[in-house]
């Protein structure tokens, strides 16, 4: 009897551990919305990855995206160029508020279509009332033709602050400022607490409320780990100055599409660049300078 009871006890303990382990695994699996991905779960922080781990991670991501979308993906992790600090210029006297940049950005950066995320909001301001009155500006204007008389438009995206409040509040350091001045997010490290969204004075950060489902023929397969690769549900994303393009020397997608040539992009450290010329020769201002965020997004007119 004693032996049997001992056996029973042992079996019970072992059984308990087994079920407990299974249960935890099951919970973990459920937590990942039915998509069990242990590799992703135990993946290191982007900045702490060594070369091998980074390469294997990129390969895994490529395979995963290619399987999901049925197209060959490229996931890069291009490092910042030396001697670059990106700056952006926007000519307010030219912008006509056509929102072409908004949709070019969505296509380039694989934003979720439903529920919709736009990295750029074009705000319509009334001329003459105040200088820039963002509280009374609207992004939902919908006339038949633009520009409308008596209004001007300010497209607002990430301002790439030097003193970025969003990176300071992140409890897990999933977002940081790169050497070339681009504020990026490690989507696999983000826990979705949305502190950064609350901290950003420009409303430039957006939250993936659902598992992004991007039409297969619209997806951009040329991606960057910190940029436009398809994001999982429940993470924060933001404008990265098209990191996958600009680190290869190309202009961002919004600057390429702008029909009036209002968008200027360049290297702030290069004295001959367009951005330096406009800062030196034009009337330049930055949004909410009183916050001391020191944006690298210059509006001029």
């Amino acid at each position: 009897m004693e032996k049997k009871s001992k056996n029973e006890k042992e079996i019970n303990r072992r059984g308990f551990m087994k079920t407990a382990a299974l249960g935890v695994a099951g919970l973990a699996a459920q937590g990942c919305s039915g998509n069990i991905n242990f590799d992703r779960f135990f993946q290191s922080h982007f900045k702490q990855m060594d070369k091998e781990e980074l390469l294997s991670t990129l390969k895994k991501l490529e395979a995963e995206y290619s399987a999901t979308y049925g197209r060959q993906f490229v996931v890069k992790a291009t490092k910042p160029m030396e001697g670059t600090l990106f700056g952006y210029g926007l000519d307010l006297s030219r912008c006509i508020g056509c929102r072409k940049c908004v949709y070019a950005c969505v296509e380039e950066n694989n934003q979720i279509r439903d529920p919709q995320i736009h990295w750029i909001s074009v705000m319509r301001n009334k001329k003459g009332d105040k200088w820039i009155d963002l509280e009374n500006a609207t992004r939902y204007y919908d006339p038949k033709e633009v520009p409308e008389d008596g209004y001007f438009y300010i497209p607002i995206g990430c301002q790439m602050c030097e003193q970025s409040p969003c990176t300071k509040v992140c409890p897990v350091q999933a977002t940081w400022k790169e050497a070339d001045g681009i504020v990026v997010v490690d989507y696999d490290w983000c826990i979705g607490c949305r502190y950064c969204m609350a901290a950003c004075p420009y409303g430039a950060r957006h939250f993936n409320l659902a598992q992004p489902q991007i039409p297969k023929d619209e997806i951009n397969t040329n991606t960057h780990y910190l940029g436009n690769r398809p994001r999982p549900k429940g993470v924060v994303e933001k404008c990265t100055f098209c990191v996958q393009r600009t680190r290869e020397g190309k202009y961002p997608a919004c600057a390429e599409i702008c029909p009036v040539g209002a968008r200027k992009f360049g290297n702030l450290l290069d004295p001959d660049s367009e951005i330096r010329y406009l800062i030196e020769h034009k009337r330049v201002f930055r949004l909410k300078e009183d916050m001391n965020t020191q944006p690298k997004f210059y509006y001029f007119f």
Partner: protein
Amino acid sequence: MMVITAAWQSVKTSAFCGLGCALFQITARVFPALVCLFLLISPALAQDNPEEELVPSKDRPGYFVNPQGEIVDEFGLLLRLFEHESVCVRCHYEKEKYEKLVLDWDRSKHSKNSVTCDKCHGGNPKGQNVGEAKNVDTTNFRVIKTPLEKLSHEEVPTAAFAYCGQCHGTQFRDWRAGIHGKRTGYWNGEKEYWICIRCHNPHNTKFQKIAPKPAPMAPHMIKFKG
């Protein structure tokens, strides 16, 4: 003049009599002013009358034909093209190919500032025959000797810029620095410079309005799909 003198007399007398009536004094001050205003306006009013006789032009939409058979705009004014008496039009105006361009130009700021055909396309508007008209005098002003459409693709930008920059100096300076206009390609390497006429139509200088892309979804429209 008679009316004004009469009015002035009335003012004088009123002041002289010293009636002291405020209302009368105001009327006396305003009346001569009104008379002057009427005298100024009356020729303009008189010009308005022929407007009723304008018949919409069949060939050129948006324009009218006056009783003399001339093509005029909605105010009964002759086209600026004829004001300039540009020689080119005598031969080229009737051609359908030029019709739209010429009409666009006529509405544009270029025509208001006397930037006539010859300034861009070359030619001599004071010439009396074909030989003189085609003889270009470039001593004072740079002109594109051959028409733009006959230049090769490499020649067009230089010609166009050398030309446009003569008047639009600030824009030209900014364009060279990359601030005005658009550049595509590489921010640190090979880029494509968009030339003036790729965005600006020199015949129709005013930008056309375009339809905007759809507005973003309002927060209450967003639905969760899990």
